[in-house]
């Protein structure tokens, strides 16, 4: 390497450092809009996410976080691993559950009441993250949440993504990234009806149990009120906050999906706040 190249290297390192400081400052100014959705049908949530992803790509909105629950719903990922569904679709329907095929990563899973779901619609490029470290942050979110109730959870080993307490799975992850914008996200079992998991091979991992915070924790969990959306939101944020560095939060209290009507502006659905 010649002397002029050394100087060039030095200059480039200096510039990179300045850029780093600017980017850290930008990170401090990042805003997150948080929506408490209550219980929302899977397809409605999916349509909403698609709209938010398009708007986020166009920079019409800031990073957004949806906190919600689903009615009993089974979902499959892009690989369509329906051999991990152990009952027929009509048997599912008679249980009052729905089945949906999605574009997210990951295998088959179940969503239901008292399972806290977070769907972050965020720009990974703005924070310089790739898929791998984003998923690690989602894992850390659930590990943090569990630890607040005295439960020691861990990230899964290779081939067993998600969050585990011993050999029992407490949280699942399935994400889609489109032009650097995330959708889908995580599902953490606060206190769902675990019997629904018997009808699938959860996440394609056989011979492993599914568990919940209710089962694992010796502590008293916050009381559920109404549709349990407040508890799901506040517990989720307790895990999410330390892992995702947002300086400013804009919390939208109880947003209800009223009607699916097109309208000008950000969202296709009409919101009501209570």
């Amino acid at each position: 390497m010649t002397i002029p190249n050394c100087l060039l290297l030095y200059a480039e390192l200096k510039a990179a450092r300045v850029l780093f400081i600017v980017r850290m400052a930008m990170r401090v100014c990042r805003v997150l809009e948080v929506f408490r959705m209550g219980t929302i049908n899977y397809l409605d949530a999916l349509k909403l996410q698609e709209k938010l992803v398009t708007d986020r790509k166009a920079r019409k909105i800031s990073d957004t976080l949806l906190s919600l629950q689903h009615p009993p719903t089974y979902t499959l990922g892009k690989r369509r691993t329906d051999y991990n569904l152990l009952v027929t679709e009509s048997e599912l329907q008679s249980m009052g559950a729905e089945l949906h095929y999605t574009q997210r990563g990951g295998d088959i899973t179940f969503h239901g009441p008292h399972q806290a779901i977070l769907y972050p619609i965020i720009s990974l490029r703005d924070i310089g993250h790739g898929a791998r470290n984003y998923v690690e942050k989602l894992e850390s979110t659930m590990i943090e949440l569990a630890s607040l109730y005295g439960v020691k959870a861990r990230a899964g080993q290779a081939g067993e993504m998600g969050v585990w307490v011993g050999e029992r799975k407490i949280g699942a992850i399935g994400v889609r990234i489109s032009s650097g914008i995330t959708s889908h996200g995580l599902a953490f079992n606060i206190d769902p009806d675990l019997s629904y998991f018997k009808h699938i091979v959860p996440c394609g991992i056989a011979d492993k149990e599914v568990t919940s915070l209710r089962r694992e924790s010796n502590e008293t969990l916050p009381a559920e009120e109404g549709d349990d959306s407040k508890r799901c939101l506040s517990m989720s944020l307790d895990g999410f906050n330390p892992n995702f560095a947002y300086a400013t939060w804009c919390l939208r209290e109880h947003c209800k999906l009223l009607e699916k009507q097109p309208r000008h502006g950000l969202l296709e659905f009409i919101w009501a706040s209570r």
Partner: protein
Amino acid sequence: MALRMWASSTANALRVSSSRTHLSPALSLSRRFSSVLDGLKYASSHEWVKHEGSVATIGITDHAQDHLGEVVFVELPEPGGSVAATKGFGAVESVKATSDVNSPISGEVIEVNTKLTETPGLINSSPYEDGWMIKIKPSSPAELESLMGAKEYTKFCEEEDASH
């Protein structure tokens, strides 16, 4: 003499090496020293294009595969279909995340890398060679002009990684 020794050890540390047949690694300042090859064009969404005559080969970069983690599934289009610049043509799944892959240029798909169905990990182990994804007949070769060269792309990755 001391300066030459320092320069030589710095060169080793930064892995500035001699070139292969027609593609050579450019100097990279990214934290992990992802390799960036001369002779290719790059999109800001981390795909590369190798234009040879009437055929363009497309894949994802070393930087991209490193940030994704181990690829476990690859979705590719059918030959005969068309792709459009900056629009998705397929996806890769890694660590429970599916990431859309965008085409840097427009054209007609003439071949897809069927080896990726059995061995999706080729994208990790050989992102610029055995891990190629599709070959197309470019419909607007001028689109290549708006893509980044190796040096520009290296700097781009560096800037993205600087916010870690």
